[in-house]
Protein backbone atom coordinates (compact mmCIF):
# COMPACT_ATOMS: atom_id res chain seq x y z
CA UNK A 1 0.00 0.00 0.00
CA UNK A 2 1.63 3.24 -1.10
CA UNK A 3 0.81 6.23 1.06
CA UNK A 4 0.09 9.26 -1.07
CA UNK A 5 0.53 12.74 0.23
CA UNK A 6 -0.04 16.24 -1.06
CA UNK A 7 3.04 18.41 -0.74
CA UNK A 8 2.34 22.01 -1.71
CA UNK A 9 0.00 21.23 -4.56
CA UNK A 10 1.87 18.16 -5.73
CA UNK A 11 0.46 14.64 -5.38
CA UNK A 12 3.38 12.41 -4.52
CA UNK A 13 4.77 9.81 -2.14
CA UNK A 14 7.16 10.37 0.71
CA UNK A 15 9.73 8.18 -1.04
CA UNK A 16 9.59 10.17 -4.27
CA UNK A 17 9.91 13.39 -2.39
CA UNK A 18 12.88 12.18 -0.41
CA UNK A 19 14.55 10.94 -3.59
CA UNK A 20 14.19 14.30 -5.27
CA UNK A 21 15.23 16.13 -2.12
CA UNK A 22 18.43 14.12 -1.93
CA UNK A 23 19.13 15.04 -5.52
CA UNK A 24 19.14 18.68 -4.43
CA UNK A 25 21.04 18.14 -1.21
CA UNK A 26 23.49 15.67 -2.71
CA UNK A 27 26.19 17.77 -4.35
CA UNK A 28 26.42 20.47 -1.69
CA UNK A 29 26.28 18.07 1.23
CA UNK A 30 28.84 15.77 -0.36
CA UNK A 31 31.16 18.74 -0.79
CA UNK A 32 30.74 19.83 2.82
CA UNK A 33 31.26 16.26 4.01
CA UNK A 34 34.44 15.72 1.99
CA UNK A 35 36.05 19.12 2.49
CA UNK A 36 34.66 20.25 5.82
CA UNK A 37 33.45 17.46 8.09
CA UNK A 38 36.02 14.84 7.10
CA UNK A 39 39.00 17.24 7.35
CA UNK A 40 37.66 18.27 10.74
CA UNK A 41 37.58 14.65 11.91
CA UNK A 42 41.03 14.02 10.43
CA UNK A 43 42.31 17.06 12.33
CA UNK A 44 41.01 15.55 15.56
CA UNK A 45 42.67 12.26 14.65
CA UNK A 46 45.99 13.89 13.80
CA UNK A 47 46.03 15.69 17.14
CA UNK A 48 46.48 12.22 18.74
CA UNK A 49 49.19 11.15 16.27
CA UNK A 50 52.95 11.36 16.59
CA UNK A 51 55.36 13.53 14.66
CA UNK A 52 58.11 11.65 12.91
CA UNK A 53 61.73 12.78 12.87
CA UNK A 54 61.30 14.66 9.57
CA UNK A 55 57.93 16.20 10.29
CA UNK A 56 55.97 13.32 8.77
CA UNK A 57 52.89 11.83 10.41
CA UNK A 58 53.26 8.62 12.36
CA UNK A 59 49.97 6.98 13.26
CA UNK A 60 50.79 6.07 16.82
CA UNK A 61 48.25 7.06 19.42
CA UNK A 62 49.62 9.53 21.94
CA UNK A 63 48.42 12.24 24.29
CA UNK A 64 51.81 13.91 24.06
CA UNK A 65 50.51 16.87 21.99
CA UNK A 66 47.86 17.77 24.52
CA UNK A 67 50.31 17.33 27.40
CA UNK A 68 52.69 19.64 25.61
CA UNK A 69 49.96 22.23 25.15
CA UNK A 70 49.23 22.01 28.88
CA UNK A 71 52.89 22.83 29.45
CA UNK A 72 54.46 19.47 30.31
CA UNK A 73 57.76 18.78 28.60
CA UNK A 74 60.98 16.91 29.21
CA UNK A 75 62.27 19.80 31.24
CA UNK A 76 59.32 20.09 33.58
CA UNK A 77 56.29 22.35 33.45
CA UNK A 78 56.10 25.70 31.70
CA UNK A 79 53.12 27.98 31.29
CA UNK A 80 54.17 29.19 27.82
CA UNK A 81 51.38 27.65 25.74
CA UNK A 82 48.72 28.17 28.39
CA UNK A 83 49.82 31.79 28.50
CA UNK A 84 49.40 32.14 24.74
CA UNK A 85 45.91 30.62 24.87
CA UNK A 86 44.94 32.82 27.80
CA UNK A 87 46.40 35.88 26.09
CA UNK A 88 44.32 35.16 22.96
CA UNK A 89 41.15 35.06 25.06
CA UNK A 90 42.18 38.24 26.84
CA UNK A 91 43.04 40.12 23.63
CA UNK A 92 39.73 38.99 22.09
CA UNK A 93 37.89 40.18 25.19
CA UNK A 94 39.56 43.60 25.29
CA UNK A 95 39.10 44.02 21.53
CA UNK A 96 35.40 43.21 21.82
CA UNK A 97 34.96 45.52 24.81
CA UNK A 98 36.63 48.52 23.16
CA UNK A 99 34.75 47.86 19.91
CA UNK A 100 31.43 47.83 21.78
CA UNK A 101 32.25 51.01 23.68
CA UNK A 102 33.16 52.83 20.45
CA UNK A 103 30.30 51.31 18.44
CA UNK A 104 27.46 52.71 20.54
CA UNK A 105 28.26 56.39 19.91
CA UNK A 106 28.99 55.63 16.26
CA UNK A 107 25.66 53.83 15.72
CA UNK A 108 23.73 56.58 17.52
CA UNK A 109 25.53 59.15 15.43
CA UNK A 110 24.65 57.40 12.15
CA UNK A 111 21.02 56.95 13.21
CA UNK A 112 20.73 60.65 13.94
CA UNK A 113 21.80 61.68 10.45
CA UNK A 114 19.09 62.83 8.06
CA UNK A 115 17.72 60.12 5.79
CA UNK A 116 19.59 61.41 2.73
CA UNK A 117 23.09 61.24 4.19
CA UNK A 118 22.62 58.33 6.60
CA UNK A 119 23.50 55.86 3.92
CA UNK A 120 26.75 57.62 3.19
CA UNK A 121 27.83 57.35 6.83
CA UNK A 122 26.84 53.70 6.99
CA UNK A 123 28.88 52.99 3.85
CA UNK A 124 31.87 54.54 5.62
CA UNK A 125 31.62 51.70 8.15
CA UNK A 126 30.92 49.03 5.53
CA UNK A 127 34.05 49.84 3.48
CA UNK A 128 36.60 48.87 6.17
CA UNK A 129 34.45 45.81 6.92
CA UNK A 130 35.15 44.52 3.43
CA UNK A 131 38.69 45.80 2.94
CA UNK A 132 41.38 43.17 2.93
CA UNK A 133 42.76 42.61 6.40
CA UNK A 134 46.38 42.42 5.31
CA UNK A 135 46.16 45.93 3.90
CA UNK A 136 44.33 47.30 6.92
CA UNK A 137 46.91 45.76 9.24
CA UNK A 138 50.08 46.85 7.52
CA UNK A 139 48.62 50.35 7.06
CA UNK A 140 49.31 50.83 10.76
CA UNK A 141 53.04 50.56 9.97
CA UNK A 142 52.78 54.04 8.51
CA UNK A 143 50.88 55.59 11.41
CA UNK A 144 53.29 54.03 13.90
CA UNK A 145 56.42 54.91 11.90
CA UNK A 146 59.28 56.59 13.81
CA UNK A 147 58.87 59.85 11.88
CA UNK A 148 55.29 60.39 13.03
CA UNK A 149 54.04 61.93 16.32
CA UNK A 150 52.79 58.73 17.98
CA UNK A 151 56.20 57.06 17.95
CA UNK A 152 57.91 60.35 18.83
CA UNK A 153 55.74 60.79 21.91
CA UNK A 154 56.41 57.21 22.99
CA UNK A 155 60.15 57.75 22.47
CA UNK A 156 60.00 61.00 24.44
CA UNK A 157 58.62 59.16 27.44
CA UNK A 158 61.25 56.48 27.01
CA UNK A 159 58.78 53.73 26.16
CA UNK A 160 60.65 52.85 22.98
CA UNK A 161 64.20 53.65 21.79
CA UNK A 162 64.74 56.88 19.83
CA UNK A 163 63.78 56.69 16.15
CA UNK A 164 62.24 53.23 16.49
CA UNK A 165 58.78 52.45 15.17
CA UNK A 166 55.91 51.89 17.61
CA UNK A 167 55.62 48.25 16.60
CA UNK A 168 55.86 45.32 17.12
CA UNK A 169 54.36 45.35 20.59
CA UNK A 170 51.16 44.71 22.52
CA UNK A 171 49.87 48.26 21.98
CA UNK A 172 50.13 47.90 18.20
CA UNK A 173 48.30 44.56 18.37
CA UNK A 174 45.39 46.14 20.26
CA UNK A 175 45.26 49.05 17.80
CA UNK A 176 45.21 46.68 14.87
CA UNK A 177 42.68 44.33 16.43
CA UNK A 178 40.20 47.06 17.37
CA UNK A 179 40.38 48.73 13.98
CA UNK A 180 39.95 45.29 12.37
CA UNK A 181 36.87 44.25 14.32
CA UNK A 182 35.13 47.52 15.12
CA UNK A 183 32.88 47.40 12.02
CA UNK A 184 31.86 43.83 12.97
CA UNK A 185 30.22 45.27 16.09
CA UNK A 186 29.00 48.56 14.64
CA UNK A 187 27.04 47.13 11.72
CA UNK A 188 24.79 44.68 13.62
CA UNK A 189 24.49 47.13 16.50
CA UNK A 190 23.38 49.85 14.10
CA UNK A 191 20.59 47.58 12.84
CA UNK A 192 19.29 47.37 16.42
CA UNK A 193 19.76 51.04 17.27
CA UNK A 194 17.84 52.00 14.13
CA UNK A 195 14.80 50.09 15.41
CA UNK A 196 15.11 51.53 18.90
CA UNK A 197 11.81 52.63 20.47
CA UNK A 198 12.68 56.09 21.73
CA UNK A 199 9.40 56.34 23.65
CA UNK A 200 10.85 53.94 26.22
CA UNK A 201 14.00 56.02 26.53
CA UNK A 202 11.95 59.18 27.00
CA UNK A 203 9.73 57.46 29.55
CA UNK A 204 12.82 56.56 31.56
CA UNK A 205 14.05 60.14 31.36
CA UNK A 206 10.64 61.51 32.38
CA UNK A 207 10.78 59.31 35.45
CA UNK A 208 14.10 60.86 36.45
CA UNK A 209 16.23 57.81 35.72
CA UNK A 210 19.94 58.54 35.86
CA UNK A 211 21.90 58.44 32.59
CA UNK A 212 23.39 55.09 33.55
CA UNK A 213 19.96 53.61 34.25
CA UNK A 214 18.55 54.97 31.00
CA UNK A 215 21.30 53.12 29.19
CA UNK A 216 21.22 49.84 31.12
CA UNK A 217 17.43 49.55 31.39
CA UNK A 218 16.03 51.33 28.35
CA UNK A 219 18.69 51.15 25.65
CA UNK A 220 20.75 48.05 26.40
CA UNK A 221 17.86 45.53 26.46
CA UNK A 222 16.49 46.89 23.20
CA UNK A 223 19.83 46.72 21.40
CA UNK A 224 20.74 43.31 22.81
CA UNK A 225 20.01 41.35 19.58
CA UNK A 226 22.43 43.42 17.50
CA UNK A 227 24.96 43.63 20.27
CA UNK A 228 25.01 39.84 20.73
CA UNK A 229 25.61 39.25 17.04
CA UNK A 230 28.37 41.86 17.07
CA UNK A 231 30.05 40.31 20.09
CA UNK A 232 30.03 36.83 18.54
CA UNK A 233 31.26 38.13 15.19
CA UNK A 234 34.16 39.81 16.98
CA UNK A 235 35.12 37.61 19.87
CA UNK A 236 35.36 34.28 18.04
CA UNK A 237 37.42 35.37 15.02
CA UNK A 238 39.52 37.64 17.23
CA UNK A 239 40.66 34.63 19.24
CA UNK A 240 41.96 32.93 16.11
CA UNK A 241 43.37 36.07 14.49
CA UNK A 242 46.77 35.55 12.96
CA UNK A 243 47.58 38.42 10.59
CA UNK A 244 47.44 41.25 13.13
CA UNK A 245 49.65 39.65 15.81
CA UNK A 246 52.01 38.40 13.11
CA UNK A 247 52.60 41.83 11.58
CA UNK A 248 52.09 44.11 14.59
CA UNK A 249 53.01 41.86 17.52
CA UNK A 250 55.91 39.86 16.18
CA UNK A 251 57.48 37.34 18.49
CA UNK A 252 56.80 39.65 21.43
CA UNK A 253 53.08 39.21 21.48
CA UNK A 254 52.17 35.83 20.03
CA UNK A 255 48.57 34.63 19.93
CA UNK A 256 47.22 31.15 19.36
CA UNK A 257 46.75 31.86 15.64
CA UNK A 258 50.50 32.41 15.24
CA UNK A 259 51.23 29.28 17.23
CA UNK A 260 49.03 27.19 14.92
CA UNK A 261 50.56 28.78 11.82
CA UNK A 262 54.05 28.03 13.13
CA UNK A 263 53.28 24.34 13.54
CA UNK A 264 51.94 24.06 9.99
CA UNK A 265 54.65 26.29 8.57
CA UNK A 266 58.20 26.50 9.87
CA UNK A 267 58.07 23.82 12.59
CA UNK A 268 56.17 21.31 10.47
CA UNK A 269 54.62 19.68 13.51
CA UNK A 270 51.10 18.86 12.36
CA UNK A 271 50.05 16.80 15.39
CA UNK A 272 50.91 19.62 17.79
CA UNK A 273 49.29 22.19 15.47
CA UNK A 274 46.17 20.03 15.35
CA UNK A 275 46.11 19.79 19.15
CA UNK A 276 46.34 23.59 19.51
CA UNK A 277 43.57 23.97 16.91
CA UNK A 278 41.46 21.70 19.11
CA UNK A 279 42.26 23.96 22.04
CA UNK A 280 41.08 26.97 20.06
CA UNK A 281 38.01 24.98 18.97
CA UNK A 282 37.12 24.28 22.60
CA UNK A 283 37.47 27.97 23.46
CA UNK A 284 35.22 28.81 20.49
CA UNK A 285 32.60 26.27 21.60
CA UNK A 286 32.59 27.63 25.14
CA UNK A 287 32.11 31.22 23.98
CA UNK A 288 29.37 30.22 21.52
CA UNK A 289 27.62 28.22 24.20
CA UNK A 290 27.68 31.18 26.56
CA UNK A 291 25.93 33.21 23.91
CA UNK A 292 23.74 30.66 22.20
CA UNK A 293 20.49 31.67 23.81
CA UNK A 294 20.58 35.21 22.54
CA UNK A 295 22.08 34.95 19.11
CA UNK A 296 19.57 32.69 17.40
CA UNK A 297 20.11 34.30 14.04
CA UNK A 298 23.23 35.84 12.62
CA UNK A 299 22.51 38.68 10.28
CA UNK A 300 24.74 39.19 7.29
CA UNK A 301 25.62 42.56 6.01
Amino acid sequence: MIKLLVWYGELTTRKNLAKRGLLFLGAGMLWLMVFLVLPGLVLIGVSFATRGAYGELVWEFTLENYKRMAGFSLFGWTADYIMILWRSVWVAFVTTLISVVLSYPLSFFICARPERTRYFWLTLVIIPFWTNMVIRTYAWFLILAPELPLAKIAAFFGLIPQSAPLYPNAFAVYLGMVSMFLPFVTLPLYASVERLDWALVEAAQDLYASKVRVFTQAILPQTMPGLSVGIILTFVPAMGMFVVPDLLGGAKYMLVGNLIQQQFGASRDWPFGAAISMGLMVLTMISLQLYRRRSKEIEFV
Partner: protein
Amino acid sequence: MRKSHPLIIAVAMFTLGFLYLPLVAVAVFSVNATRYGLVWRGFTLDWYLKLCQNEFILNAAWNTLVLAVVSTVAATILGTVLAIGMDRFPWGRKANTSLDLVLHIPVVIPDIILAAALVVAFGLLRVVSSLFEPGLLNMIIGHITFQISFVALVVRSRLVSIGRDVEEVARDLFASTPYVLRRVTIPLLLPGIVAGAMLAFTLSLDDFVISFFTAGPESVTLPLFIFAAVRRGVTPQIHALSTLVVLITVILIVGMERFTRK
Protein backbone atom coordinates in the same frame (compact mmCIF):
# COMPACT_ATOMS: atom_id res chain seq x y z
CA MET B 1 14.78 62.97 14.16
CA ARG B 2 16.86 63.22 17.29
CA LYS B 3 19.84 65.43 17.81
CA SER B 4 23.11 63.84 18.90
CA HIS B 5 24.94 64.96 21.99
CA PRO B 6 28.21 66.76 21.06
CA LEU B 7 30.16 64.10 22.91
CA ILE B 8 28.57 61.38 20.79
CA ILE B 9 29.50 63.27 17.63
CA ALA B 10 33.06 63.71 18.87
CA VAL B 11 33.51 60.02 19.71
CA ALA B 12 31.92 58.97 16.41
CA MET B 13 34.27 61.24 14.47
CA PHE B 14 37.24 59.94 16.41
CA THR B 15 36.19 56.35 15.65
CA LEU B 16 35.78 57.01 11.94
CA GLY B 17 39.14 58.76 11.92
CA PHE B 18 40.64 55.76 13.66
CA LEU B 19 39.24 53.47 10.95
CA TYR B 20 40.36 55.62 8.04
CA LEU B 21 43.63 57.19 9.14
CA PRO B 22 45.76 54.13 8.20
CA LEU B 23 44.04 53.72 4.82
CA VAL B 24 44.41 57.42 4.02
CA ALA B 25 48.08 57.24 4.99
CA VAL B 26 48.60 54.38 2.55
CA ALA B 27 46.91 56.35 -0.24
CA VAL B 28 48.97 59.47 0.52
CA PHE B 29 52.29 57.65 0.51
CA SER B 30 51.39 55.83 -2.70
CA VAL B 31 51.78 59.12 -4.57
CA ASN B 32 54.86 60.29 -2.70
CA ALA B 33 57.97 60.64 -4.84
CA THR B 34 60.46 59.38 -2.26
CA ARG B 35 61.36 55.76 -2.18
CA TYR B 36 62.48 55.45 1.43
CA GLY B 37 61.11 56.94 4.61
CA LEU B 38 58.03 59.03 5.09
CA VAL B 39 59.24 62.46 4.01
CA TRP B 40 57.04 64.18 1.42
CA ARG B 41 58.99 64.74 -1.81
CA GLY B 42 56.25 65.75 -4.19
CA PHE B 43 53.44 64.12 -6.12
CA THR B 44 54.04 61.28 -8.55
CA LEU B 45 52.11 58.47 -10.21
CA ASP B 46 55.27 56.53 -11.02
CA TRP B 47 54.53 53.78 -8.53
CA TYR B 48 51.23 53.06 -10.24
CA LEU B 49 52.89 52.92 -13.64
CA LYS B 50 55.55 50.56 -12.31
CA LEU B 51 52.81 48.26 -11.01
CA CYS B 52 51.58 47.63 -14.52
CA GLN B 53 55.07 46.59 -15.61
CA ASN B 54 55.62 44.21 -12.73
CA GLU B 55 55.01 40.76 -14.15
CA PHE B 56 54.80 39.24 -10.69
CA ILE B 57 52.05 41.57 -9.51
CA LEU B 58 50.03 41.19 -12.70
CA ASN B 59 50.28 37.44 -12.26
CA ALA B 60 49.10 37.71 -8.65
CA ALA B 61 46.16 39.89 -9.73
CA TRP B 62 45.23 37.31 -12.35
CA ASN B 63 45.41 34.49 -9.76
CA THR B 64 43.22 36.47 -7.38
CA LEU B 65 40.62 37.00 -10.07
CA VAL B 66 40.63 33.37 -11.25
CA LEU B 67 40.33 32.15 -7.68
CA ALA B 68 37.45 34.50 -6.87
CA VAL B 69 35.49 33.90 -10.09
CA VAL B 70 35.83 30.12 -10.23
CA SER B 71 35.11 29.57 -6.55
CA THR B 72 32.16 32.00 -6.58
CA VAL B 73 30.52 30.35 -9.59
CA ALA B 74 30.91 26.87 -8.11
CA ALA B 75 29.83 27.90 -4.62
CA THR B 76 26.81 29.82 -5.91
CA ILE B 77 25.51 26.81 -7.83
CA LEU B 78 26.21 24.33 -5.02
CA GLY B 79 24.91 26.65 -2.31
CA THR B 80 21.70 27.56 -4.14
CA VAL B 81 20.80 23.96 -4.91
CA LEU B 82 21.62 23.02 -1.34
CA ALA B 83 19.39 25.78 0.04
CA ILE B 84 16.45 24.68 -2.13
CA GLY B 85 17.02 21.09 -1.04
CA MET B 86 17.05 22.05 2.61
CA ASP B 87 14.06 24.37 2.58
CA ARG B 88 11.63 22.82 0.10
CA PHE B 89 11.50 19.21 1.26
CA PRO B 90 9.95 17.64 4.35
CA TRP B 91 13.04 16.54 6.21
CA GLY B 92 12.63 15.48 9.81
CA ARG B 93 13.49 17.83 12.61
CA LYS B 94 16.63 15.89 13.45
CA ALA B 95 17.94 15.92 9.88
CA ASN B 96 17.22 19.64 9.63
CA THR B 97 19.12 20.42 12.81
CA SER B 98 22.20 18.48 11.76
CA LEU B 99 22.18 19.99 8.25
CA ASP B 100 21.89 23.39 9.86
CA LEU B 101 24.78 22.67 12.18
CA VAL B 102 27.11 21.62 9.35
CA LEU B 103 26.11 24.70 7.36
CA HIS B 104 26.98 27.01 10.22
CA ILE B 105 30.43 25.54 10.93
CA PRO B 106 32.41 27.71 8.47
CA VAL B 107 30.48 30.78 9.59
CA VAL B 108 31.23 30.49 13.29
CA ILE B 109 34.62 28.83 13.66
CA PRO B 110 37.83 30.87 13.36
CA ASP B 111 39.04 30.47 9.78
CA ILE B 112 42.45 29.29 10.93
CA ILE B 113 40.88 26.03 12.15
CA LEU B 114 39.33 25.37 8.75
CA ALA B 115 42.68 26.20 7.17
CA ALA B 116 44.50 23.77 9.46
CA ALA B 117 41.95 21.03 8.72
CA LEU B 118 42.35 21.59 4.98
CA VAL B 119 46.16 21.46 5.20
CA VAL B 120 45.99 18.11 6.96
CA ALA B 121 43.30 16.72 4.63
CA PHE B 122 45.13 17.82 1.47
CA GLY B 123 48.33 16.41 2.93
CA LEU B 124 46.73 12.99 3.27
CA LEU B 125 44.96 13.18 -0.11
CA ARG B 126 48.29 13.96 -1.74
CA VAL B 127 49.25 10.35 -1.15
CA VAL B 128 46.36 9.36 -3.44
CA SER B 129 46.64 12.02 -6.13
CA SER B 130 49.08 14.76 -7.10
CA LEU B 131 46.06 17.04 -7.69
CA PHE B 132 46.29 18.00 -4.05
CA GLU B 133 49.72 19.61 -4.19
CA PRO B 134 49.48 23.10 -2.68
CA GLY B 135 48.29 25.46 -5.39
CA LEU B 136 45.42 27.20 -7.08
CA LEU B 137 43.14 24.15 -7.19
CA ASN B 138 43.47 23.62 -3.45
CA MET B 139 42.80 27.28 -2.81
CA ILE B 140 39.67 27.11 -4.96
CA ILE B 141 38.47 24.06 -3.03
CA GLY B 142 39.12 25.84 0.26
CA HIS B 143 37.28 28.97 -0.80
CA ILE B 144 34.28 27.03 -2.13
CA THR B 145 34.04 25.23 1.20
CA PHE B 146 33.41 28.35 3.23
CA GLN B 147 31.52 30.17 0.46
CA ILE B 148 28.89 27.41 0.12
CA SER B 149 27.69 28.08 3.65
CA PHE B 150 27.29 31.80 3.16
CA VAL B 151 25.52 31.41 -0.19
CA ALA B 152 23.20 28.72 1.15
CA LEU B 153 22.28 30.79 4.22
CA VAL B 154 21.53 33.91 2.17
CA VAL B 155 19.52 32.00 -0.45
CA ARG B 156 17.63 30.08 2.22
CA SER B 157 16.54 33.24 3.98
CA ARG B 158 15.22 34.47 0.63
CA LEU B 159 13.42 31.14 0.09
CA VAL B 160 11.74 31.52 3.47
CA SER B 161 10.73 35.12 2.76
CA ILE B 162 9.19 34.44 -0.69
CA GLY B 163 7.15 31.57 0.77
CA ARG B 164 5.68 28.68 -1.17
CA ASP B 165 2.38 30.07 -2.36
CA VAL B 166 3.42 30.85 -5.91
CA GLU B 167 5.07 27.47 -6.31
CA GLU B 168 1.94 25.80 -5.00
CA VAL B 169 -0.19 27.69 -7.50
CA ALA B 170 2.09 26.54 -10.30
CA ARG B 171 1.73 22.95 -9.10
CA ASP B 172 -2.04 23.26 -8.95
CA LEU B 173 -1.89 24.28 -12.60
CA PHE B 174 -0.02 21.04 -13.36
CA ALA B 175 3.48 22.46 -13.78
CA SER B 176 6.22 19.83 -13.63
CA THR B 177 9.13 20.05 -11.21
CA PRO B 178 11.66 21.40 -13.77
CA TYR B 179 9.09 23.89 -15.00
CA VAL B 180 8.35 25.17 -11.49
CA LEU B 181 12.07 25.55 -10.86
CA ARG B 182 12.81 27.28 -14.13
CA ARG B 183 9.84 29.62 -14.35
CA VAL B 184 8.88 30.21 -10.72
CA THR B 185 11.46 29.39 -8.04
CA ILE B 186 14.66 30.56 -9.72
CA PRO B 187 13.27 33.90 -11.03
CA LEU B 188 11.81 34.71 -7.61
CA LEU B 189 15.03 33.64 -5.98
CA LEU B 190 17.34 35.61 -8.27
CA PRO B 191 17.96 38.60 -5.97
CA GLY B 192 18.94 36.19 -3.19
CA ILE B 193 21.23 34.23 -5.51
CA VAL B 194 22.93 37.39 -6.73
CA ALA B 195 23.33 38.69 -3.18
CA GLY B 196 24.82 35.34 -2.14
CA ALA B 197 27.19 35.32 -5.11
CA MET B 198 28.36 38.86 -4.37
CA LEU B 199 28.93 37.96 -0.75
CA ALA B 200 30.91 34.89 -1.82
CA PHE B 201 32.97 36.95 -4.27
CA THR B 202 33.88 39.58 -1.67
CA LEU B 203 34.67 36.89 0.89
CA SER B 204 37.06 35.30 -1.58
CA LEU B 205 38.81 38.60 -2.37
CA ASP B 206 38.96 39.35 1.34
CA ASP B 207 40.31 36.00 2.44
CA PHE B 208 43.87 35.69 3.53
CA VAL B 209 44.12 32.81 5.98
CA ILE B 210 42.69 29.97 3.85
CA SER B 211 44.78 31.07 0.86
CA PHE B 212 47.91 31.43 2.97
CA PHE B 213 47.67 27.85 4.22
CA THR B 214 46.78 26.20 0.91
CA ALA B 215 48.81 28.24 -1.60
CA GLY B 216 51.77 26.91 -3.52
CA PRO B 217 54.75 28.84 -4.87
CA GLU B 218 53.03 29.35 -8.24
CA SER B 219 49.69 30.55 -6.95
CA VAL B 220 50.42 33.82 -5.16
CA THR B 221 47.40 36.10 -4.86
CA LEU B 222 47.43 39.83 -4.15
CA PRO B 223 46.84 39.56 -0.38
CA LEU B 224 49.58 36.91 -0.15
CA PHE B 225 51.90 39.07 -2.22
CA ILE B 226 51.28 42.14 -0.05
CA PHE B 227 51.75 40.11 3.13
CA ALA B 228 55.08 38.71 1.97
CA ALA B 229 56.22 42.11 0.71
CA VAL B 230 55.45 44.10 3.87
CA ARG B 231 57.33 41.61 5.99
CA ARG B 232 60.42 42.56 3.99
CA GLY B 233 59.63 46.26 4.33
CA VAL B 234 57.02 48.61 2.94
CA THR B 235 57.59 50.34 -0.39
CA PRO B 236 55.57 52.98 -2.25
CA GLN B 237 54.77 50.37 -4.84
CA ILE B 238 53.00 48.25 -2.22
CA HIS B 239 51.09 51.34 -1.13
CA ALA B 240 49.99 51.91 -4.71
CA LEU B 241 48.88 48.30 -5.07
CA SER B 242 46.99 48.42 -1.76
CA THR B 243 45.30 51.68 -2.71
CA LEU B 244 44.10 50.11 -5.94
CA VAL B 245 42.75 47.07 -4.07
CA VAL B 246 40.90 49.33 -1.63
CA LEU B 247 39.46 51.38 -4.52
CA ILE B 248 38.20 48.21 -6.21
CA THR B 249 36.62 47.17 -2.89
CA VAL B 250 34.86 50.53 -2.62
CA ILE B 251 33.56 50.26 -6.18
CA LEU B 252 32.28 46.73 -5.51
CA ILE B 253 30.52 47.83 -2.31
CA VAL B 254 28.87 50.85 -3.93
CA GLY B 255 27.84 48.70 -6.90
CA MET B 256 26.45 46.03 -4.59
CA GLU B 257 24.39 48.61 -2.71
CA ARG B 258 23.03 50.07 -5.95
CA PHE B 259 21.97 46.61 -7.01
CA THR B 260 20.39 45.43 -3.78
CA ARG B 261 18.60 48.69 -3.01
CA LYS B 262 16.60 48.79 -6.26
